[in-house]
């Protein structure tokens, strides 16, 4: 029966409970869906909680077994998923509403039904099973962990607003993350405290302790996890690794595009450079040596001497810069790696590597300058040029021409070259371009990879459905080039659309930009990228513009004072500590002075003012004296009752109260004798002096706010 007596309290608790859970859904969803989707997730869960809270005691619901209810929820879940799929996939709908609206609509339905069903499930479990609320706690914990995990080790990741907020204001993002973590702990504790049953409370706290203990042991045994993102091309990883291809590069594509937009590095251009083919290529390494199965990093002396392997200790120049200075522009760039890489990479083709002081250890794993000889020739310039290099020995040239033991490469290549005009029949560039054009026209770009487990994935791709990603295209093209005697290799690194630079000098390299491309060596020019660009693609390779992040990281990396200035300019309104502290001091001092002045005024007012209406000022002064030693009227207490309580300290108060009330509530408004009031005031003063110890007296004198207690 007691629930009725504090029903408002009860429903308030339920309300907070549902807000916490719905908030967790929201937090969980921000990194995975659109704004509409996360709002839908929030409202779905809130609705579910409202429904269960208001209906679970109803007879109709109580009749169902938990398992049946869970089945119903699963049905709702699946229906919602199916419906949202249907929305997104229905063509007429997309045509009439525009694809964006349909997509939004689909996201909203999906997240609403998902969180609605999950909310129903969690709440039903919680009200029916004694251990049910543990699921809720675990869910809240997971939601926070899931969202924050992407930011671990100070990485910048989705949801970007958390890190960006901190970066722009020059705060260490870990503070923000800690704040979020504290928020999580607080919400969890709130959830715990909201529980009313003592038995359940025990379960709750043991779960929390278990969570903490397992975290502690995990960190102690395995250490904190290091970021593992963006390894789709085998570019990133521990720096000290052996430079060999220990895994099939074709299988990397199976890493779904989960972290596609994660930033991996930022490049600042120190010299003006615009690529002629619409994309910046950053070479990290190359597969050039055929190892019997496929192309791999070469371990033969004299092969790929242009590559800079591992990270040198200090300034290093490549032993074999591309020839033909006039066709290249020496371009200086600064690279800041956000994720550890195996090798340094630089704008094609890097010739000088130089370490650089890291301006921000929290942000950059490694920073260095590269000087690159960036290509500056039109494609026509490559016509009528020979391939290969005079410095190459016979063995090396042979290595660059090795292909799998498969005649189909040569057959296909010859077939394609047969259509060449007679004047270009023997021109290596024309041959290469023809092969590239064939792949452009017939290849289909897709991250879905059917060929990974074939013995020769490139053959499976080339002579099969021609559907694959850059690895397939570049391997296929390289084999075709080599089959017709053009020395080629697969360059790997990043390829970033030139448009991404948006006019600034900084360029953000993201995981999605990881790329592999075929390269051909032309005499007097060096390695030339001939990158097939399939006209049909099944993947959306575009990214959201990250201009702010790009510029910010660039400024940070450039470290020429502008970033500090930027930070300072941002900081001033927020964090000028001295001004804030001084203002705070001033305000405090002003408040204290005001309080003391008011206190003194109220005590002396009866003497200062001739016209003490109804002896009210006297009475107030007496009450102020009592309040300063901690005796004041409580809420709802009548004056008589207070007098009764206070008369142990100051017995005169009873009589004074009577006089005061007679004047305040009585008919006659005549003022009592001034002397009588004065006598009472001094009597109370004496009594207080007599009945309190010296400590209370000092406190009474010092307390500036005691008069606030007089009511």
């Amino acid at each position, binding site marked *: *029966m007691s629930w*009725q*007596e504090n*029903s*408002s309290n009860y429903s308030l608790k339920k309300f907070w409970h549902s807000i916490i859970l719905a908030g967790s859904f929201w937090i969980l969803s921000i990194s995975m869906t659109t704004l509409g989707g996360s709002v839908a997730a929030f409202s779905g869960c809130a609705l579910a909680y409202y429904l269960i809270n208001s209906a679970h005691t109803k007879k109709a619901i109580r009749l169902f077994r938990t398992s049946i209810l869970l089945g119903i929820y699963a049905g709702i879940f699946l229906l919602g998923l199916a419906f949202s799929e249907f929305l997104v996939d229905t063509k007429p709908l997309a045509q009439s509403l525009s694809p964006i609206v349909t997509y939004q609509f689909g996201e909203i339905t999906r997240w609403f039904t998902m969180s609605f069903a999950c909310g129903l499930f969690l709440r039903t479990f919680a009200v029916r099973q004694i251990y049910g609320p543990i699921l809720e706690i675990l869910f809240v914990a997971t939601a926070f962990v899931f969202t924050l995990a992407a930011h671990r080790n100070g990485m910048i990741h989705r949801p970007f607003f958390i890190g960006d907020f901190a970066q722009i204001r020059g705060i260490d993002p870990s503070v923000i993350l800690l704040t979020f973590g504290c928020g999580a702990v607080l919400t969890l504790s709130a959830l715990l405290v909201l529980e009313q049953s003592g038995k359940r409370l025990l379960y709750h706290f043991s779960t929390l302790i278990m969570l903490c203990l397992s975290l502690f042991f995990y960190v102690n045994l395995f250490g904190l996890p290091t970021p593992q993102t963006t390894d789709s091309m085998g570019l990133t990883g521990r720096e000290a690794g052996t430079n060999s291809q220990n895994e099939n590069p074709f299988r990397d594509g199976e890493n779904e595009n989960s972290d596609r937009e994660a930033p991996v590095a930022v490049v600042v251009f120190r010299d003006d450079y615009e690529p002629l083919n619409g994309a910046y290529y950053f070479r990290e390494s190359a597969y050039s040596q055929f190892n019997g199965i496929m192309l791999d990093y070469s371990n033969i002396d004299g092969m790929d001497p242009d590559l800079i392997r591992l990270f040198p200790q200090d300034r290093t120049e490549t032993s074999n810069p591309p020839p033909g200075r006039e066709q290249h522009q020496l371009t200086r760039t600064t690279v800041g790696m956000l994720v550890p890489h195996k090798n340094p990479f630089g704008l094609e083709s890097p010739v000088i590597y130089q370490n650089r002081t890291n301006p921000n250890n929290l942000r950059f794993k490694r920073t260095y300058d590269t000087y690159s000889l960036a290509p500056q020739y039109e494609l026509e310039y490559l016509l009528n040029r020979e391939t290969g290099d005079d410095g190459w020995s016979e063995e090396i040239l042979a290595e660059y021409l090795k292909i799998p033991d498969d005649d189909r490469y040569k057959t296909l290549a010859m077939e394609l070259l047969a259509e060449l005009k007679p004047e270009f029949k023997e021109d290596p560039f024309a041959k290469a371009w023809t092969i590239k054009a064939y792949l452009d026209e017939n290849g289909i770009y897709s991250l879905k990879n059917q060929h990974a487990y074939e013995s020769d994935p490139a053959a499976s791709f080339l002579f099969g459905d021609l559907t694959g990603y850059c690895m397939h295209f570049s391997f296929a093209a390289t084999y075709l080039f080599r089959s017709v005697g053009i020395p080629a290799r697969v360059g790997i690194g990043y390829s970033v659309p030139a448009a991404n630079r948006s006019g600034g000098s900084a360029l953000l390299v993201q995981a999605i930009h990881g790329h592999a491309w075929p390269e051909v060596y032309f005499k007097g020019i060096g390695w030339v990228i001939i990158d097939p660009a399939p006209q049909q693609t099944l993947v959306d390779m575009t990214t959201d513009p990250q201009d702010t992040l790009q510029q910010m990281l660039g400024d940070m990396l450039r470290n020429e004072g502008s970033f500090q200035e930027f930070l300072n300019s941002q900081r001033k309104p927020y964090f000028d500590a001295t001004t804030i502290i001084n203002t705070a001091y001033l305000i405090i001092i002003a408040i204290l002075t005001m309080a003391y002045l008011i206190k003194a005024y109220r005590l002396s007012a009866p003497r200062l003012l001739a016209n003490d209406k109804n002896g*009210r000022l006297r*009475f*107030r002064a007496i*009450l102020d004296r009592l309040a300063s030693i901690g005796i004041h*009227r409580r*809420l*709802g*207490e*009548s*004056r*008589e*009752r*207070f007098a009764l309580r206070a008369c142990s300290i100051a017995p005169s108060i009873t009589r004074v109260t009577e006089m*005061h*009330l*007679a004047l*305040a*509530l*009585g*008919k006659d408004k005549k003022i009592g004798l001034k002397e009588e009031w004065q006598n009472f005031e001094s009597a109370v003063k004496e009594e207080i002096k007599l009945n309190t110890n010296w400590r209370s007296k000092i406190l009474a004198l010092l307390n500036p706010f005691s008069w606030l207690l*007089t*009511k």
Partner: protein
Amino acid sequence: MTTNGTESSEREFIKAQEVLLKLQTIVKQQVLGRDNIIELAIISLVADGHILLEDFPGSGKTTLAKALGEAIESEDITTESTIPFRRIQFTPDLLPSDVTGVSIFDTKTDKFHFRHGPLFAHIVLADEINRTSPKVQSAMLEAMGEKQVTVDNTTYVLDELFFVIATQNPLDLVGTYPLPTPQLDRFLFKITMDHIDRAAELEVLDSIDERKRLLSNYDKVNRDDVLKARETIGGQIYISRTIKTALVDISRSLREDDRVLQGNSTRSMVLLLPALQARAALRGRNYVSSEDIENLIPEVLNHRIELVPGVNDFEKVLQDSMERPLDELAKSTLTK
């Protein structure tokens, strides 16, 4: 003139106070350990209300009523049958005429002659009022409300000083007709009595003979003096507007309380005013104070408020409702 006026009114006030104190003293000597209830009874008598005592048999109800009745004397009784004190024991077979009186045909004069019932008294003790049929209850309640009795279409006016002390046993409810809330509204106070404390109980046993002897020897209070005191108190005890504001606020906050099914009527507040004045007079004050409200409101409201089923703590509900208005009242003495 004004001095004369104030002086005479002050004299009247003192006289009224004396009457009340005298009544209180007499009854206190007869009923031991029940000072609070005696005070409420006297307040009710002065405020022209009636009281309903709820307690077990043998707790001194009759003694209280009798002592009060015996303390009042009337010099010139207009109706020959109005006597100081009557007691009616209510039973299921009682008829309204047993209470009000009956017209009897006098064969000598060939006329109907009204024989006054037990209601024609100053103090009437209505014992176990919930045991009788609703018909009798309503006759009783008409008399209480209108101070008159109607028999055979003739209306007989009761004495101006007509005061009912009704009782009911809270436990033995079998075969009773509980009074519905509107009828309870006729009683100014409903007082639930506890057992008296140990010392008082011992004193009761010790002084039984002495008290019997004393009863006939009191210097009694004149009926007219009581009526005069009633008038004086009503006219002279000042009720400040802030006090009235507090009363209205308390009523309103009770009505708005979720735990209250039905709040108190405006009439209850109207009836409360003279009671507050009487209490102030008993305390020697010429104004009503918040202390009076605090003490009288529970007795006035506890039978007028219906709580939501499941909520039992009336005191808590009332405390919560009184907190704000009383705080405002206390604050206002410094600010207004």
